[in-house]
């Protein structure tokens, strides 16, 4: 879930932009010129995937796919996220322009954690690909959800309920995101292992 415009105070927004810029700087380090199309096309693919609806009665949810993004792109996810979120904010009005930095930081940290967890789980070879992907995605949703709730929490007493509601709303997303990411990882492992870290062999 994103933070939208108008809620957070200015200093937090500025801090968000600063941290997102620092993360993107780290994400861009060592990027070769011929790697540009790869990052761009994957960013577009994730942008489109996040438009898919998943039914959760009584409504439907969009998934974030920042877990899968972290798994597939690794450090480059820090580059893909601000771009994808920026395009989402400008083209669709999801999220917000002023909260772009905060959102990119939140999802960026979560994607990095997912990437690390996936590598760690996958390195032993004893955990099935489905569970590697599912746990990585669950961790990503949990981390970004907790960061979001913490930020709302810090706004004052009136926002405590909003923070709780936001955290609660993450639970169905967490389950679906885990199942979907797990299945996608399982599929990719069979169809094109080169896309996943440690799978090129």
């Amino acid at each position, binding site marked *: *879930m*994103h933070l*939208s*415009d*108008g*809620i957070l105070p*200015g200093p937090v*927004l500025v801090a968000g932009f600063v941290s997102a810029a620092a993360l993107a700087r780290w994400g*861009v380090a060592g*990027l070769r*010129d*011929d790697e*540009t*199309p*790869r990052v*761009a*096309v*994957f*960013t*577009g*693919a994730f*942008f*489109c*995937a996040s*438009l*898919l609806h*998943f*039914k959760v*009665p009584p409504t439907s949810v969009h998934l974030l796919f920042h877990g899968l993004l972290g798994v*597939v792109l690794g450090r480059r996810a820090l580059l893909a996220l601000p*771009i994808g979120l*920026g*395009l989402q*904010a*400008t*083209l*669709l*009005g*999801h999220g*917000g*322009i*002023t909260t772009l930095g905060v959102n990119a930081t939140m999802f960026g940290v979560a994607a990095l954690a997912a990437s690390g967890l996936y590598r760690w789980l996958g390195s032993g070879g004893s955990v099935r690909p489905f569970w590697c992907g599912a746990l990585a995605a669950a961790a990503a949703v949990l981390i970004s959800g907790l960061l979001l709730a913490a930020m709302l929490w810090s706004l*004052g*007493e*009136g*926002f*405590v*309920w*909003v923070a709780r*509601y936001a955290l609660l709303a993450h639970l169905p997303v967490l389950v679906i995101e885990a*199942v*979907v*990411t*797990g*299945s*996608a990882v399982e599929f*990719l492992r069979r169809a*094109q292992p*080169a*896309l996943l870290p440690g799978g090129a062999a």
Partner: protein
Amino acid sequence: MRAEAELYARGDSPLHRWDARWKTVTLAVLIAVLVSLESVRAALAGALMALALLAGGRLPAGLMLRRLLTAQALLFPCLVVLPFTVPGAPLPGSPLPVSREGLHLALLLYLRALAILTVGFAMVYSTPMVVWLRALQNLGIPRRLVEITLMTYRYLFTLGWELTRMRWALAVRGFRNRPSRAAWRALAQVVGVTLLRSLERTERVRQALACRGFQGRLRTLHEFRAGPPDWIKSAVGILLAAGLWMVDR
């Protein structure tokens, strides 16, 4: 998904003719002021100012209202809850335990969000993306980031169309979007196939770019030119933003 913003960004109005660099800086200053507003009075003035700006772009009103409404959807739960949860003096004569401070805060948040979103839409719907990104690059956003964004934007619609076709293929084969493990698995495979095809497409894009002499730098023919009308618009914009800030103090 359609390149709807792009469609309207090529229109003609005082807002469209404003040089993208000057427009970006001015509207960024305006948004910075809007973010920091603390009084409902100033936020209301800001929202009206933003709506006037959008009206100056001669964009279709119905479409803009729909966009604003969807963009604010995330905010609504917040607005409903806040009057009840913010501690403060209860509103006299109200049957519900609503606090005056809570209502005030909810109203402030709503107006602030409305103003910021409207200014954002005024920017997006009056500048072609390519021109805007180049303007951002001129203003100091790294070239790398701008170029990846441009390329992402280029392939977004291709990929979106591919995804639409895949959804048709699913529908033809009797797929129903139900909350079940099987449906999620099928959609997960759609995502997987999208990524797979992206990988193949990446290779083709890289080759096509190499054939056309791409050496890691995208070029455009757009040249920025700013004249007195741009300066006047920006001066007025900055003055209005300063006025808002004064009203808020």
